[in-house]
Every structure is written in structure tokens, then in C-alpha cells.
């Protein structure tokens, strides 16, 4: 008998395995033509056959994603700190931020291409544009939830606004910040791949566009799976960092207070 714990640990792998088997069974069973929907084994075959180019393009995508993500983190942290610690800046910027976030980022790609040409830079910037918003919102929320009593305690000790931000505001915002990183990194993949499909000759997005124009559907699917895997790995990585850095917020039964 499996214990509850082992079951929880195995469950995600079982689901993946189940989907893989189902995929293979449907495609083979219904004899779906492979230029429409290749079987998993065909995708695996294509992956092995094109291993080197796939790795090269995946590295490129990982690089652009991480670069865009890094800019988003720095920018998001700074903007979030500004928005969260000043009601005036909050009021002033929020409508603009929300409006900006409603624009599909793919709409920016042509603009970026005109400015920076085809290649890596538009992909990095698209990854950045799409992923900074959750960081800003979470950091701002974390900062704005300072209890008035704690503020009174600090101010009557003679603490400056900067002191309060450093001693209470930022540490309190950290769980929110790290939670946002998980979301932001997956969004960054979306951004870089979108830009690569339209405006690059490198990266998994480009690889998939090239493969689909030569009707190599197995390679297209291989690209999709590679992106998915990179996304999951990065997500888990940041989830791990989150648990390590802000354990207090999870061990505390009353949440972040």
C-alpha cells in the first residue's frame, strides 16, 4: 500500500505518464496523420534527431527569458517599492500600470523590431514587459499592509521612512515578492517565445516557426515540450527559493500577520 505522502510525491509524475500514454494511444489508435498530430514516440524521435539544434535554441530561449526576467525583477522591485510606500505614487501610477498590463504584449513586438531589429533584444524586452507587472503588484501589496501600530512604534522611536521601509516594509513584502517570482518567470517564457516566433532567427520560438513552415509537426511539438519543461523547472526553482528565504511566512499559522 502506498502511503499518503508517497502518493502525493508520485501523483504529478503519474499524471504526466497517464497523459503521455493517452496521447500515444489516441494518435496510434485512431491513426491520426502525423502532419496534423504526431505521436509522442514520433516527437521523441524528432527530439533525438534534432538534439543539438534543440539544445542550442533552448539555451537561447533560456538566456533571453532569464535576462528579461532579471530586468523585470529589478524594475518591478523598485517600482513596487515606490508604489507601495507612497499613496501619491500609487494613485498616480496605478491606472497607467493596469492599462499597460491589459495590452497583449505581442502587440509590442513590431514596435521593438523597428527599434532594435530582429533578434535577441526584442525577445528580452518582451519577456521583461510581460513579467514585471506581477512583481510590482505583489511588492506594492506587501508594503501597503504595514499595521498602523507597528508604524507608530517605529516612528515614536524616531525612525525615518527609509528605516521603516528597510526594517519592516521590505521584509514583510518578501513573501509576496518571492511568490510573484514564480508567476513572473513563467510569464517571461511566454514573452520570449512570442517574440522569437515573430521576430528572431534564434530560440525555441523560431525553431517551432521554422519547423511548422516545413510541416515538421513532430519538431514543433518537441519545441512545445521543451518550453514546458523549462517553465516547470524554473517555477520549482523559485518555489524552492521562496520556501528557503521566507519560511517564516509559511511556518507562522497566522500568515504574514
Amino acid at each position, binding site marked *: 500500500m502506498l502511503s499518503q505522502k508517497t502518493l502525493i510525491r508520485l501523483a504529478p509524475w503519474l499524471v504526466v505518464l497517464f497523459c503521455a500514454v493517452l496521447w500515444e494511444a489516441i494518435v496510434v489508435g485512431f491513426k491520426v496523420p502525423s502532419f496534423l498530430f504526431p505521436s509522442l514516440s514520433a516527437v521523441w524521435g524528432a527530439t533525438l534527431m534534432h538534439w543539438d539544434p534543440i539544445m542550442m535554441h533552448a539555451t537561447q530561449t533560456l538566456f533571453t527569458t532569464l535576462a528579461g526576467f532579471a530586468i523585470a525583477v529589478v524594475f518591478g522591485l523598485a517600482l513596487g517599492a515606490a508604489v507601495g510606500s507612497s499613496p501619491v505614487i500609487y494613485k498616480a501610477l496605478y491606472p497607467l500600470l493596469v492599462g499597460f498590463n491589459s495590452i497583449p504584449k505581442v502587440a509590442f513586438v513590431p514596435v521593438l523590431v523597428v527599434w532594435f531589429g530582429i533578434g535577441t533584444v526584442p525577445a528580452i524586452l518582451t519577456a521583461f514587459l510581460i513579467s514585471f507587472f506581477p512583481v510590482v503588484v505583489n511588492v506594492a501589496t506587501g508594503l501597503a499592509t504595514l*499595521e498602523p*501600530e*507597528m508604524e*507608530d*512604534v*517605529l*516612528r*515614536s*522611536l*524616531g*525612525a525615518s521612512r527609509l*528605516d521603516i521601509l528597510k*526594517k*519592516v516594509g521590505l*521584509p*514583510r513584502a*518578501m513573501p509576496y515578492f518571492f511568490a510573484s517570482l514564480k508567476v513572473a518567470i513563467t510569464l517571461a517564457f511566454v514573452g520570449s517565445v512570442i517574440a522569437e516566433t515573430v521576430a528572431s532567427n534564434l530560440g525555441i520560438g523560431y525553431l517551432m516557426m521554422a519547423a511548422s513552415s516545413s510541416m515538421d509537426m513532430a519538431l514543433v511539438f518537441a519545441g512545445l515540450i521543451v518550453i514546458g519543461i523549462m517553465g516547470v523547472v524554473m517555477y520549482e526553482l523559485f518555489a524552492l527559493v521562496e520556501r528557503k528565504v*521566507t519560511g*517564516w*511566512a509559511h*511556518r*507562522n*499559522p*497566522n500568515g*504574514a*500577520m
Partner: protein
Amino acid sequence: MDFVRFEDVSLAYQPDAPFAIEDVSLSIRENEFISLVGPSGCGKSTVMKLVTGLKPPSKGYVYVDGRQVAGPQKCVGMAFQASNLLPWRTTLQNVMLPMEIVEPYRSTLRARRAEYEEQARALLKRVGLAGCEDKFPWELSGGMQQRASICRALIHKPRLLMLDEPFGALDAFTREELWCMVRDLWQEEPFTVVLVTHDLREAVFLADTVYVMSKRPGRILVKRDIELPRPRDLDVTYTEPFAAYVHELREHIGHIRGT
């Protein structure tokens, strides 16, 4: 010379709002222990904010240590009903917080951290929290958190301690233990205390002077000196004179609520 002095102080939170407190005059001697009682919403916490300079008065003057209060005081100790300990800091780190902000500790912290931490440990030990230095706040009981919170309010040796219903959320036994703790700390190294409470026994047991405030807008209705000899033992709470004080204050409060 009065340490804290209010001259006809009124405060409205918004310019056109009615006064939260009105024409409050009081004077507190250095190292006096005063207690403020009154109905909920009468402006007790507001008086605290005025003493500490977190709010400027709309009318009247507030003086602390002979100087008119302009802006937040630099080194007041405060503790509230909620302990407000920072969950990412250990108990010791929480108690050390004022040392990172208040001068002269702040600028000497780097060089003399060990010495200051020793002071914090000694204070924690003093209130019965030896061994809890490295625990996080959520690992402490409510009473222990409140002890730590009071240590944090006192570590930088403030001349003024503000306590806003600090024992309100505790059970009766723990509350009496903490009364004695505050009494002892105060008796050993006196400082001026303003204690807001709903508990008349607490006020009479701890304070030199009890002020009763009216319903909103808050005014000082009664100033009562408590002439029970010090040091006061918990046994004093079962004596005739103690009961008489509590009863008298009880009647004043009854009047306020009745009208």
C-alpha cells in the same frame, strides 16, 4: 517640573470632523505612573498619539520635558494590545529593533553589538523569557509575546513608556503576572508611564494617578491619586482601600455610560 503637560488640548482627525478629544489638560511628573480609563472610543489612544507627537494638536499645547512637542518623539517606548512582533525576527532580534533606530545605540551598534545583545538577554531573562531568545514570535504564547513586546519597548531605556491596553488580550492570571512584571521593571529603574486600560483594578494596582475620560469628545472628568503604599503586592488588591478606589472609579464610569 512636569514631564508631560497638556494645556487645553483638542484634536480633530480631519479638519471638519468633530473633536476626538476636547480641552484636555493634564500634567504628569517625571517617573509618574498614570493610567487613563474611559469608554471605548473616548480618545485614550488619541492622547497617546499626542504625547508621542504622532499627531499634532488641533488646539492647545503639548509639552514633553519642558519642550513643545513638534513631530514624533525620538525615543518613546510603546506597546499595544497586539504584540506587533516581527514574525521574521527571533525574540532577541525583535527586542533589539529599537537599538537599530535610536541614538546613541544606532551608531554604536556595529562596534558594541555583543554588549547590547547582552542587555537584551538580561532584560528577557528579567521578564522570565530566558531560553526564548532564539524562538520566533509564533512559537511563544500570547503572554510571552506580550512580555517580549514590553522588553522591546524598554530596551533603549526610554524616559517615557506608552502602554495601550497591553494586557487586554490575556487571561486573568497571566495579566496579574504581567502587572507585577511591569511594576518591578518600573520600580527598579523608574520611567514615566502612561497606561491605557479598560481594567479598573489594573489601573488602581499600577498607577499613581488615574484619569477618567468622558465619552466622545473625550475630556478629563476625574483625576484620582491612588495613595496605596508602594511597593504594592498583589495582596493589596483584596484590601478594603483598594476596593474603595475601584468602586469609586467604577461609579464615575457608570455615570458616563448612564448619561
